[in-house]
Structures are given as C-alpha cells and as structure tokens.
C-alpha cells in the first residue's frame, strides 16, 4: 500500500513535470520591424558613432524554460545601413569596408544558451564579409502582453572579418572593436 502510494506520488510528479514541459515549449517569434532596432557603434577618431541597420529579419525561438531547444536566426541586409551621413554610408557599402557588391548580407545563428546573473548569454556564429566567426551575445528577455522584448549587446573585432581593407585596415581612425546593440520587439509567429 505504502509502496503504491509512493509510486503514485512519483507518477504524479513525473506527469506534472511533463505537463510543465508541455506548457512551456519553445515559443517562435519574429521581430516586428518598425519597432525593433539593430545598431552598431564604432569608434571613429576617438568618438563613438552609431549606425543602424534598417532591414533585418530575426527568427527567435526562445523560452527561458527550454534553453536547449531555443534558437536565433538573424539575417541582416547590409545595404540598409544608416549612419546619418551619406558619405559615410556610401564608403561603408563600398569595396574597402562591407563590400556589399560581394557580401550583401550578414547572418547570425546561435548554437547554445546559458543563463547569466543579468539574463542570458548565447554562443553563436556571425557570418560577415565572407568570414564566419564566433560572436557571443548577452541579452535579457522579457515577456510582454503581446509577445516579448529582447535586448542585448555583442562585441566584435571588425578586422577579424576583413571589414576594413586598404587604409581602413589601420585602427588609427576607426578602432577595431565594434559594439552591436539590439532591441527587438517580438511577436509570436503565426
């Protein structure tokens, strides 16, 4: 009798756990374009300058309870860059920097997630300018009534991706390190 009670209790716990898992499967979202931002911050002549990518798509499969099956896939249209200065935008699209004639897009995919004190950290790879390299991102994820909000940052060294040829290989005028900051308003995928 007593053994049966224990078995029953264990069964209940097991089914509760499986119900728990079933209740929080990984949720698929897409970024709402006008409300979401994907910015980069470079350091030029000692001062930071911010640019933004106007066009990108983000397929975000994420659940705080299912990190193992979570996954980000972000496609960035490099031609959509905007630094509020046409001369600089044209130069950056050109052969010595992004070379968008040959590499029009950049692609970021995650491989795994870990919980951090402040939020989450993702390991993943960035493909840019024909080079694919590890770029971790740190982010916070907040559920909202209409979906979720994903905010985070990353840091990369532009020269590791060959972004900066000729004179631009020098880090005198434009530093190697570039920060990326994003704020995505996520809507559940229909």
């Amino acid at each position: 009798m007593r053994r049966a009670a224990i078995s029953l209790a264990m069964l209940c716990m097991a089914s509760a756990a499986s119900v728990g898992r079933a209740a929080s499967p990984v949720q698929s979202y897409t970024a709402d374009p006008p409300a979401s931002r994907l910015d980069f911050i470079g350091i030029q002549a000692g001062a930071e300058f911010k640019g933004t990518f106007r066009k990108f798509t983000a397929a975000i499969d994420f659940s705080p309870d299912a990190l193992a099956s979570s996954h980000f896939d972000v496609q960035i249209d490099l031609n959509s860059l905007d630094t509020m200065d046409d001369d600089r935008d044209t130069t950056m699209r050109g052969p010595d920097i992004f070379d968008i004639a040959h590499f029009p897009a950049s692609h970021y995919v995650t491989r795994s997630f870990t919980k951090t004190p402040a939020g989450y950290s993702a390991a993943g790879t960035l493909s840019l300018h024909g080079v694919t390299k590890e770029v971790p991102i740190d982010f916070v994820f907040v559920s909202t009534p209409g979906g979720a909000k994903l905010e985070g940052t990353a840091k990369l060294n532009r020269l590791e991706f060959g972004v900066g040829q000729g004179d631009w290989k020098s880090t005198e005028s434009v530093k190697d390190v570039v920060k990326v900051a994003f704020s995505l308003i996520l809507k559940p995928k229909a």
Partner: protein
Amino acid sequence: MPTQEPRTRFTAVAQLLHWIIATLIVTQFALAWTARDLPLGTHKLALLAWHKSFGMTVLMLAIIRVVWRRANPPPELPAGMTPFERTLARATHIAFYALLFAMPVTGWLMSSAKNYSVSWFGLFTWPDLIAQNKTAFEALKTTHDYLSGVLLVIAVFHILAALKHHFWNKDDVLLRMLPFTKSKRGS
C-alpha cells in the same frame, strides 16, 4: 592696488593666449583646406580629428582669455588715434572674440548634426549639442565656411593694422603684444 601705474603692455598671460590662439587658427586653416578636397578616408578623418581637437582647444582658451581680460584690462590705445581708428580697432577686436566662440561652436554643432561626435585628442568625447539632422548640417557648414572667410579677412586687417602702427605710426601697439620686447612710450 590703486597706486599701480596704468598698464602699458599686455600681461604675459594675455600675450601667451594671443600667440597660442593665433598659431592654432593658422593650423586650423591649413588642416581645413587640406581636408576639404580629400575623399572620405582615413587621411581626411585624421586631419578633421586634429581640426576638431584644436578647435575645442581654441574654445577653451577663448573662455580663459575673456575671463583674464576682464580681470586684467588691456593697455589703452595710443593717444594719437582718431575716433574712427578707435572704433575700427574696437570693432575688429569684438569681431575676433565673437569668432573665437562662433567658429568652434558652429564646428561642434556641425559634427553633432552629422553624427561625427567631437573627441578631444582621443581623451574624451564632447556631448552632441543637437540631434543628427542633414538640413541643419548643411546650414551650419555654410555658416562655418562663411565665418572662416570673415575671420580670414579681419585677421589680415589686424596684421596690417599692427604693422602700420609699428612702421608708420611708430607706436608700441605691436610691441606691447610681443614677448621679450620692451615697449617704447608710443603715445
């Protein structure tokens, strides 16, 4: 100190500020004219980085100079000058002081409007004064260019006037701003 004689020369500090700022302004024209025709590249960015750092230096020195001038009034103009000459000299100096502020500030505004924030020799970054705005940038650039023309004209006038005082009137107007010289009594 009421018993002090009226000053006949500029103070050493005033002389130092005058000549440092004069040297910086010559450098500013050289940098701006060199950078102007270059395509956007690392060379242009480097020249403009110097231009901005020197420009902000002029702004800071101009503030010190105005404060110093209020505490240490300059020597009187030579007695022989006509009222017209005095007005002209005064107008030139007022214009110079106005430009010592207007040039750096319009430059700073330009940089803010174009999203090229101003760093001071890479040591720190000045805050942007206005948000990015292409129309504002074009207007500010025109103003900055125009004022640089005005500055050039009055600088030439100022130099010619100083030489005229020295060689024609033979007074001490030039010498009293020159370090390591003695002013003859020129009034």
